[in-house]
């Protein structure tokens, strides 16, 4: 939007940084957690951490959809590809490691693996080549899940099915609060997921967990204001749900998208890479759409895999327990060119973002 230039006003940034310094606690450290790779990118790219006083720490939670996809589901995609099915996936899903192989490895062995920009592209491919079987590896949070749902409800060509690997953000936030020694004091909730699920999806955090929660946009000023709003709540000793991203997020969210998701999917328990099984955290196609469920169609179900390679600290980085620079492999054995762990593969992975910003 043309207004975006005003959303990057340096004078405003200076003033909000001053407010943050005034409001931040003087002694005790507060820990604010976001759960979105794009927030981490904004924070790292614009050097926002350097504007914060030493008592304010911002950590990155499991907000990279590719990173949290468990090895077992990558293994399913790889197995299908090696079986001769054309697997269509988003760009950064190509290199995400399975237990032994990534989809890129499968392609090197001759499998037909294609990168697409959207679910729609997979539909078009399947229409054009009716003699081949296609599977769309549907990774992503609530921002991406509605588009998969939409294509399923439109009755795609018979030679296309979906390996659904969608995950939901609020259950991951609840997991973080259950980790005793993480001590989170406030949440920055992800703006674009929230355009779909609405503010209402986070009501539980201030109510049941007394956790200040602010939905934020992705301009540097959005993030700074969200931090300020959380610090203000902490200082007041209250926990509220607030919306910094009013230009895109409403209380109800996108009801049309929510209804389409509900018609296509059931919410089920599911594995997250390195984090184990989270209750009601993943989506599965409803029984009536089983014809488009790649797992049903090809009788494939892999339930366990090797999520974390030896030495990799992805499981701790994904929950914000340690910083990438605290991993012994970071920028040594594990680089964007030759990634070891999923957090270095996903464009939204914390390690990948830190590597690209040359943080050492």
């Amino acid at each position: 939007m043309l207004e975006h230039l005003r959303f990057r006003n340096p004078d405003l940034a200076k003033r909000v940084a001053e407010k943050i310094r005034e409001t931040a606690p003087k002694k005790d450290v507060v820990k604010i957690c976001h759960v979105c790779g794009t927030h981490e990118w904004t924070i790292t790219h614009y050097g926002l951490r350097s504007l914060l006083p030493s008592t304010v720490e911002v950590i990155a939670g499991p907000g990279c959809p590719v990173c949290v996809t468990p090895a077992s589901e990558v293994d399913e995609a790889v197995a299908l590809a090696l079986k001769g099915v054309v697997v269509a996936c988003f760009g950064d899903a190509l290199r995400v490691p399975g237990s032994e192989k990534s989809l890129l490895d499968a392609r090197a062995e001759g499998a037909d693996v294609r990168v697409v920009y959207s679910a729609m592209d997979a539909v078009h491919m399947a229409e054009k080549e009716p003699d081949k079987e296609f599977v769309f590896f549907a990774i992503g949070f609530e921002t991406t899940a509605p588009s998969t749902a939409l294509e399923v409800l439109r009755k795609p060509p018979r030679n296309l099915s979906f390996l659904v690997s969608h995950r939901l953000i609020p259950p991951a936030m609840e997991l973080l609060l259950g980790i005793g020694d993480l001590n989170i004091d406030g949440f920055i909730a992800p703006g674009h997921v929230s355009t779909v699920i609405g503010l209402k999806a986070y009501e539980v955090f201030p109510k049941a967990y007394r956790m200040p929660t602010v939905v934020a946009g992705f301009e540097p000023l959005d993030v700074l204001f969200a931090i300020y709003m959380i610090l203000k709540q902490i200082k007041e000793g209250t926990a509220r749900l607030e919306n910094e991203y009013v230009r895109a997020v409403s209380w109800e969210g996108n009801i049309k998208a929510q209804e389409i998701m509900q018609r296509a999917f059931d919410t089920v328990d599911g594995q997250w890479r390195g984090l184990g099984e989270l209750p009601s955290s993943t989506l599965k196609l409803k029984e009536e759409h089983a014809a488009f469920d790649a797992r049903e169609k090809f009788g494939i179900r892999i339930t366990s895999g090797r999520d974390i390679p030896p030495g990799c600290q992805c499981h701790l980085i994904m929950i914000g327990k340690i910083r990438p620079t605290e991993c012994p492999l970071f920028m040594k054995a594990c680089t964007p060119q030759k990634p070891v762990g999923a957090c270095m593969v996903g464009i939204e992975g914390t390690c990948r973002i830190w590597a690209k910003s040359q943080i050492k």
Partner: protein
Amino acid sequence: MKTMCLAIPAKVVKVQNGKALVDFGEVVLREVDISLVDVEVGEYVLVHAGYAIQVLSREEAEETLRLWRELLEAESSLETKQQRVQNA
């Protein structure tokens, strides 16, 4: 930067059969699916992986700027006397 949870604002230029031609501020117009939203020509949408996921309005953008001003102008009434002494 194209990431999986990032959505990019674009202006709707033409609407036809559940699809729209949108302008991302580039020279070329792109086609996106608008089945998840109710949108008209001239409005802005957030586009994620080829699908518009929400409608933005100029008024709401103004609302953000208003919220920011309000936050900055609010007297920090909570500032304690002690801190004022420290700051002095």
